[in-house]
Each structure stands twice: as structure tokens, then as C-alpha cells.
């Protein structure tokens, strides 16, 4: 059977094909057969992992009051994550454009195009969550009760509603703050929404004890978390997952109605926004425009350039801030522990934040370099460029860490001194990792950079955690601190060796300056860099 060109199904198939290609490129460009096999293997592995979880959960009894509050929290978190993903996807469609110009320039009605895009966003959100949630549902149905299959319609209904909300939010932001700022606001809103449950829980934990007690009492009084049998719309997802047919129908119906309404009401506006986004005016330089202070010096110029690029891109600023915010829960957990003194609790947090943020800034200066060929053709030695870029990383790090380190010094000079040393080591290690293993990409996608190399992402997080372990042992004066340090040194030595091997093979990955001596580029990196526009 062939699908009529230009029809909704045809457009949807086109979008799904692009989604699939995106997935296979994440799997290192695997062929369709290989990608299917990898996904099946992952699915099988997740089913095996779900087995003990279901055994443990069934001890509490599925569909009982005991598990309902936990389930409600998980569903709430998942739903907010879905809304955030939909918001990100809708904004990406508007600004990254991809095929939107081509489609909107065709004689196909815009509403049909947007409907297909919305369905595609919904499918990709559902797919990424389904991969994790559906194995649990399947194993639950097999080992516990068929009621677990209620996850399928519940998740689908929620994904449809979340997509509608994501679309509505993106349009609201677009028309409220204007095309030039909407992207940044959407990124910030999405990140806050996505992490709202974690952040909310931490805010709750930070409240004074009497306030927490009164909130808990209010929740008990209103009975929000007590009954699983309530027909309140808010409880529908929990009831659906518990196998309530009526709740499943309501969830699916709500999803279909909200998504259809969003597409009908917002389709035209989305098309208008897409056109407006393409012609968003550029900003003026601001207060410092006009006369400039031409000065010699590579280091000074590179530092100034990086500083300007960072401060003028609020989305980067937001992403860096969120990276810090997401690390705060560790501090809260440690601070709330009766066993750990305040200063001891703050030191590993500062070290982790320093290492993580330094990794991000190093990535920006090396892999997110917008004009790598310009740097590569400059008459400057690669070592000088590396040094200048490292100093460009160090400067914002000093600014970020100055306040917490001063606060720490007021509590304990010894802890502050140790924190400075280990934070500097953490910064240097994640920065060097990014220098020796560049992952070329668009600056705007800083937080998504690890999608290119999940292994390097894990290594970067691992380095930060290893330094945190090391500093904890150092604080208590244990020689065990040397163990994580030795692991860090080994990891960096291996990365450096691989980097040198790549240079020797002539396959330099990014800006020539990073490749000591060769000043060479691989044509692949160039195609990648410029190919994404």
C-alpha cells in the first residue's frame, strides 16, 4: 500500500524516518538491522533488570495504597519530563528549522505539517520513555498482574497531553517574549520543568521543620495522597497504571482531545512563528559597542572572545546555571545529615560543581569553537592556543567558585584550602579530557554534548565523582585519597595516549591547534562543523 504524497500519514512517515535516522546516528550510524538488534538487546536487558524490581514491588501489592504515593510521584516526574521534552522539541523545530522551510514552502496546508510534527514529537517522547517503562509493565503483567499493562494507554495519553502542553508553552513564550528571546526562555523553562520534581523535593527538604510539618499535615487533611479509588482527574494516571479501564479511557481521551485542540488552535500560529523565527533581528553589541580597545596578545584576545560569547548567549548562561542547580541536591543531602559537619559537606559539592562546569566551559572553548579554521590558520603554536584556552576556562571558574569558597573559608580555613586544591585538580582533569577528546558540536547544545559520546560523558562525570571521593578521604586524612587520584591519572593518561595516536594517524578531530604540531584538520570534522549550519 502506498501513502498519498502530502497526506498526514506521508508527512508523519517522513518525520518518523528522520527520527529513526537520528537514533541510528546516535548508535554510530548503525544499519537498520544492527540498530534493531541493538534495541532488541537493550529491551531484553531492561526486561531482565525489571524482573527483580517487580518481584520486590509485588511484595507491597500492586494497586494498593502502599505504593500509590510513590507511583504518583514517579508519574508526576515523568509527566513533567515529557512536557519539557515536548517544549524542547517544539522550540528546536522552530529555530533549528531543518526541513521546516522546505515543508512550509510547499503547497501542503501548514496545519497538516504541524500536526505531523506534533505527532512525531509525541512519538519520540513516548519512545524514549517507553523503552524504560514498558519492560517494567511487561514483566509486571507476566509475574504479578495483567493490570500492569495499563501503563501502555496511560503513557500514550500522558505523552499526547504533554505534547499539547509543550506546543502551547512554546507558542506562549514565542508570542510573550518575542522570537529573539523565546528560545532561551524555552530552554530555561524546559530545564526547570524537567527537573522540577527533583528541585521541588530539595526545596521541600530545605524548608524549616515546622513548615514541612504543616505542609504534610495539610496533605493528610485534604487526603490528596490517601485514596487510590478517587475519580479526581489528577489521580487518573495512577488509577490507569493500576488497571482501571475507565481511567485508561479518560487518559487516552484527554490526550486525543488536547493534542487535536492544540494542533487545530496553534497550527497556524506555529507556522507564523516559524517564519518569524527565521527573521528574528540580531542584537546590538550593547554598552561597549563603538570604539574598541585593540590590543595584542593571544591569551588576552582568546579570553575576551570566550567571555563575550558566553555572556552574550543567555542560553549558555542558563545551561551553566542549571548544571550548578542540579548539583545542589547533593549538598542538601549532605547538609541535612546529622553525621557530617557543614564544612565537610560543602567541600565535595564544590569540587563536583567545579569539575562539571569546567568540563562544560572547556567543551565550549574547544569543541564549540565556531571558527576552528580561523584559529588553525593563525600564526600561533598549538601549545600557545591550548594554554590560552585553558586560561579562558580558568577565569570564569574563578568567578563561579569565589563566593562558595569564601563562604567555606569563613567556616573552616583548612576545608577551604583543601577545596581550592581539589577543585583546581577537578577543573584541570575535566578540561584536559575535553581538550584531548574533543566532540565538535553547536554551542547551543552544550548540555546535550554527551549524546555524541556517551562514554566520554560518563568519564567526565566519573572524574568529578572521583575527585569528590578523593577530597572526602583527604579531609579525614586517609591515604585512601590516593586511590581515586591514581584512577584519574590513569584515565587521563589513556585519553592523552589515544589523542596522540589519533594525531599520529592523521585523523585529527577538531581545531588544528589542539593537535600538537600537526595544525591539521580532518575533512570529516569540517563537514560536521559546517554541515549543521
Amino acid at each position, binding site marked *: 500500500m502506498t501513502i498519498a504524497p502530502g497526506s498526514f500519514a506521508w508527512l508523519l512517515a517522513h518525520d518518523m524516518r528522520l527520527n529513526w535516522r537520528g537514533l541510528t546516528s546516535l548508535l554510530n550510524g548503525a544499519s537498520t538491522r544492527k540498530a534493531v538488534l541493538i534495541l532488541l538487546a537493550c529491551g531484553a536487558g531492561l526486561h531482565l533488570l525489571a524482573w527483580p524490581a517487580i518481584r520486590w514491588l509485588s511484595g507491597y501489592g500492586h494497586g494498593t495504597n502502599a505504593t500509590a504515593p510513590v507511583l504518583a510521584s514517579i508519574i508526576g516526574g515523568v509527566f513533567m519530563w515529557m512536557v519539557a521534552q515536548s517544549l524542547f522539541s517544539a522550540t528546536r523545530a522552530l529555530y533549528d528549522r531543518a526541513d521546516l522551510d522546505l515543508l512550509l514552502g510547499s503547497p501542503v496546508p501548514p496545519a497538516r505539517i504541524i500536526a505531523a510534527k506534533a505527532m512525531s514529537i509525541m512519538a519520540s517522547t513516548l519512545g524514549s520513555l517507553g523503552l524504560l517503562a514498558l519492560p517494567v509493565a511487561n514483566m509486571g503483567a507476566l509475574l504479578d498482574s495483567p493490570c500492569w499493562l495499563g501503563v501502555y494507554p496511560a503513557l500514550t495519553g500522558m505523552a499526547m497531553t504533554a505534547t499539547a502542553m509543550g506546543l502551547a508553552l512554546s507558542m506562549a513564550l514565542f508570542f510573550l517574549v518575542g522570537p529573539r528571546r523565546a528560545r532561551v526562555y524555552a530552554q530555561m523553562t524546559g530545564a526547570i520543568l524537567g527537573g522540577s520534581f527533583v528541585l521541588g523535593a530539595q526545596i521541600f527538604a530545605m524548608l524549616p521543620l515546622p513548615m514541612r510539618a504543616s505542609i504534610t499535615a495539610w496533605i493528610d487533611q485534604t487526603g490528596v495522597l490517601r485514596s487510590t479509588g478517587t475519580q479526581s482527574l489528577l489521580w487518573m494516571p495512577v488509577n490507569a497504571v493500576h488497571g482501571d479501564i475507565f481511567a485508561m479511557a479518560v487518559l487516552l481521551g484527554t490526550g486525543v482531545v488536547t493534542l487535536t485542540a492544540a494542533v487545530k488552535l496553534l497550527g497556524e500560529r506555529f507556522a507564523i512563528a516559524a517564519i518569524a523565527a527565521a527573521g528574528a533581528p*540580531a542584537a*546590538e553589541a550593547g554598552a561597549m559597542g*563603538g570604539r*574598541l*580597545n585593540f590590543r595584542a596578545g593571544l591569551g588576552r584576545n582568546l579570553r575576551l*572572545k570566550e567571555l563575550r560569547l558566553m555572556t552574550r548567549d543567555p542560553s549558555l548562561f542558563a545551561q551553566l546555571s542549571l548544571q550548578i542547580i542540579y548539583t545542589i541536591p547533593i549538598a542538601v543531602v549532605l547538609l541535612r545529615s546529622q553525621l557530617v559537619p557543614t564544612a565537610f559537606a560543602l567541600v565535595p559539592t564544590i569540587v563536583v560543581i567545579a569539575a562539571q562546569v569546567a568540563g562544560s566551559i572547556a567543551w565550549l572553548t574547544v569543541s564549540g569553537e565556531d571558527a576552528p*579554521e580561523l584559529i588553525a*590558520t593563525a600564526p600561533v603554536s598549538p601549545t600557545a592556543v591550548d594554554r590560552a584556552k585553558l586560561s579562558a576556562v580558568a577565569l570564569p571558574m574563578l568567578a563561579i567558585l569565589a563566593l562558595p569558597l569564601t563562604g567555606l573559608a569563613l567556616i573552616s580555613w583548612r576545608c577551604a584550602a583543601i577545596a581550592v586544591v581539589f577543585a583546581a585538580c577537578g577543573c584541570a582533569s575535566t578540561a584536559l579530557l575535553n581538550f584531548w577528546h574533543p566532540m565538535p558540536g553547536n554551542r547551543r547544545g552544550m548540555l546535550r554534548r554527551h549524546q555524541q559520546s556517551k562514554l566520554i560523558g560518563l568519564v567526565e562525570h566519573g572524574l568529578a565523582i572521583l575527585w569528590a571521593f578523593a577530597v572526602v578521604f583527604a579531609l579525614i586524612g586517609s591515604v585512601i585519597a590516593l586511590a581515586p587520584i591514581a584512577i584519574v591519572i590513569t584515565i587521563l593518561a589513556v585519553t592523552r595516549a589515544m589523542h596522540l595516536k589519533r594525531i599520529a594517524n592523521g585523523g585529527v578531530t577538531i581545531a588544528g591547534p589542539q593537535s600538537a604540531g600537526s595544525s591539521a584538520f580532518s*575533512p570529516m570534522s569540517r563537514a560536521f562543523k559546517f554541515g549543521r549550519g
Partner: protein
Amino acid sequence: MTAALSLVSNRDASHPALQLTSVRKTFGPKIAVERMDLTVQPGEFYALLGPNGAGKTTTLRMVAGLLRPDAGTIRIFGTDAVKDPIAAKRITAWLPDEPMLYDKLTPLEYLEFVAGLWSVTPAIAEKKAAELIDVLDLGPHRNTRCEGFSRGMKQKVALAGALIHDPRLIMLDEPLTGIDAAIARQVKDLLTARVRDGATIILTTHILEVAERLANRIGIVNHGRLVAEGTLTELRAMTGGSNTTLEDVFLSLTAREALAS
């Protein structure tokens, strides 16, 4: 500027501006450039023509220090560009087909940054930046971030960046592709003026009219080799016609080479 370039030209009169000897570059099994011999004299405006994938850009990227040749030597005003890339880069400029810009910087800030990379004396850099902004008609946009610029505007900013350190060898890859006639005219006038002042220019282009009107000499590359070289008259003579256009000459030479290979 003219005086400075003239002095340089006199000093380096014994060396060609660019000399490639048996240069070879492969990407895996694909041979991009094969035994390329090319000499460009100081003060020449040299156009490198060839079909897509012929090896023009790869050749220029090797000269710019962005690719290391597998074999052969590259000399820029007598300096070995592979052994002493820093010295070679100091006197060259490379303008790729896609402008290398920072979206969040203004043209003036971009020029300030590039001048810093090439260690141009601050006072001279400021003067040059003002001149280039004026000549390329970038004045009204000097403090606007590049993110909203058209391709032509971006190309002009990138060109200004390439010229701010008064390079003696300027290499341009398809500099006029995708820009309107008015901007193309500004770019062509600026390049011609640079050659008059003593600079050497090598450009690749698919717009044969540009090569025909601007270049002193034309080289035709196909399958990674220089298949013909000379003035337009000399090239016409090679194909046996005196009134033929460069397009006819180009098609005839590339077809002949394809048959031979």
C-alpha cells in the same frame, strides 16, 4: 600599505609566492591530490578552476596548513609551510567558502580578535579595521552582532578579517558564491586593489566569468592534477580556438583529460 607590500615583494623576488612540488593527498582509498606541481609568482592573481571534487579546495587547505600533505613540499615565499607552519601562516590568509565567524561578536570585535591572533600592532589594527569597514561598507553594521547577517554580509566580514594583517598570499575558496552583484563588486574591487598593491591572490571559483575578468593566470585541476595552466590566450591556444570562451576552454580541457584518464 602599498609601500610595505612593495618592499616585501622586492625582498622576496627570488622566491615564488607559492610553490607546490609533487604534492599528494589521499583520504583512505580516494586520491584527492596527485603529484601537484604549481607555481604562483608574487603579485599574480591566479584562478584555480576545476569540476566539483577535482582537488582545488584540498590543495588550498594544505597550503593554509589545515591538512598535512602525504608527500611533496609546499613553499610560501620560500618558507616550507609544512616544516615551519607558523612562519608561513604569518603571511597568508585563508577564506573558506563558508565564512568563519562568531555569531555573537560584532564585525568590529571580530576584527579586533583576528588582529590579536595575527599579532597586528594595536594602533595599526585599529586603523586597518576602520579602513576595511569603510571600504566594504560595513559601517552601519559595525556594532551589530553577526548572527542576523546575510551570507554576503558574513562573507564581507570574513574577508575583512582575512585582510586585516596585510597578508602577502591570499587564498579564497569560492568567495563570490551566493552573494549579490553589489557585494560581489565590492569584493572584486578590493581584491584587485590588493593585487595592485603587491599581494598575491589564489582563488577557486565556479563562476568562470570571474576568472576570465580578474585572473592573470588560470590553472585547471581535474582528478587531483593540474591538467592545464596559462593565461586565457594560452589556454585558448591549447584547445585550438582563438575566440572561444573560458567555459569552452574549460569544458574542452576537462573532457580531454577525462578521456585520457
